[in-house]
């Protein structure tokens, strides 16, 4: 494929079919161009043919607004498939699957016509100049500032849309409650003398509870209030009251 700045790009769709690279303002524009080039009626688009040509054009042009063109391409391919489906009898309220595309093309063609009219109007108007030289504005108190909500909201949206992507470092302080865990373990050991790790955690523990309990156990073990035993490798931990500790 030629470089993007190449002025023209030939499409293999037909003899003398040469299009400007930036000549299309969108997929509908390209589609209209293909139809016009083939002198085809919008109302009776040969979908299969036009879909193939469209895909080829998109591919060959390497269109930079690819998303919009690919969206149209997929619609065309879907339509192409639908046109192959067996058709019910003509008087059975058969709706042409091309109806929406035809409507959009006609509507877009109308917009194009208005755009051309506007371009001509602007061209005409640009041949008339307003006064160029304006004397320095008089020294008067400045007129009151104007501001309205819509303008402000636009600014809000501009700001928001300009934020690249939220970079958020969410540092959440989740305090570990070692004290409560200590009291809970002590109370349990007072009652039973030997408890399992899961007993110490209490019902429906959160990650904070787990950490708090673990720290409390280690602290209590260090103080000598209890002993932590693991009877066998990978077996559940057993927490035993240390008689020496409690009497101390």
């Amino acid at each position, binding site marked *: 494929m030629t470089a993007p700045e190449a002025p023209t790009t030939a499409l293999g769709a037909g003899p003398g079919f040469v299009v400007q690279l930036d000549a299309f*303002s*969108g*997929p*509908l*524009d390209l589609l209209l161009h293909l139809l016009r080039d083939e002198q085809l009626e919008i109302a009776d688009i040969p979908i299969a043919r036009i879909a193939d040509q469209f895909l080829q054009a998109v591919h060959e042009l390497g269109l930079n*607004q690819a*998303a*919009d063109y690919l969206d*149209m391409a997929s619609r065309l391919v*879907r339509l192409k498939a*639908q046109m192959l*489906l067996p058709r019910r009898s003509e008087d059975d309220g058969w*709706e042409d*699957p091309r*109806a*929406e595309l035809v*409507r*959009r093309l*006609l*509507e*877009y*063609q*109308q*917009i*194009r*016509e*208005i*755009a*051309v*009219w*506007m*371009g001509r*109007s*602007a*061209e*005409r*108007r*640009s*041949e*008339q*100049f*307003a*006064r*160029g030289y*304006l*004397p320095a504005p008089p020294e008067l108190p400045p007129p009151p500032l104007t501001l309205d909500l*819509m*303008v402000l*909201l*636009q600014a809000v*949206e501009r700001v928001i849309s300009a934020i690249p992507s939220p970079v958020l470092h969410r540092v959440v302080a989740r305090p570990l409650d070692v004290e409560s865990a200590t009291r809970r373990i002590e109370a349990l050991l007072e009652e039973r003398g030997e408890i399992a790790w899961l007993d110490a955690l209490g019902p429906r523990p959160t990650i904070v509870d787990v950490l708090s309990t673990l720290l409390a156990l280690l602290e209590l073990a260090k103080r000598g209030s209890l002993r932590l035993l693991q009877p066998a490798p990978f077996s559940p931990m057993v927490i035993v009251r240390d008689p020496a500790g409690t009497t101390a």
Partner: protein
Amino acid sequence: MTPLAQLLEAALFSACRPLTAEELSTLDQDATLADVRVALEQVREHYDFEQHGVELLELAGGYQILTRPIHAAAIERAQFSVRTPKLTAAALETLAVISYRQPVGRAEIEEIRGVSAGGVLRSLQERGLIEVVGRSEGLGRPLLYGTTPLFLELLGMRDLADLPRSDELTIALQPHRASAEGMDDAAAYVEAES
């Protein structure tokens, strides 16, 4: 020229935008709106009759003195003034949609043009050709756009009624609503079939 016509001419000369008859009538408290219109007509006729290089035009709801098109080429060649840059096809199409459908949201513009419109809308807003005129009641309450007086100025139009009526266009479209229904039908059909 009458004293009022003189004053109006001076005021129109000194402004860099079209002035409405109402604005012009504030120049002289003794002048009624009707007086202003008569005097403006006098200025306009004088420019035409005496073959001035400028003319008085009705633009964007107001009046403005502009050079006659016949002198554009010579003035440009001498580089005393430059034409406003041309609008791109994308900008013109977007303006076309907005001018006929206003107030209109971005989604509808994109649907009609078949391309995303964010960049164009922003640049048209920056150039002051369109503005936000409200918000839709719909989901997300999207902003609605409309054209500005500067848009009319740029196209040399008095008001939006100067736009070609849809029956003046070569392609006659069914009313918008009817076609929208058609679209729904088509969509329903696609769903039923797929």
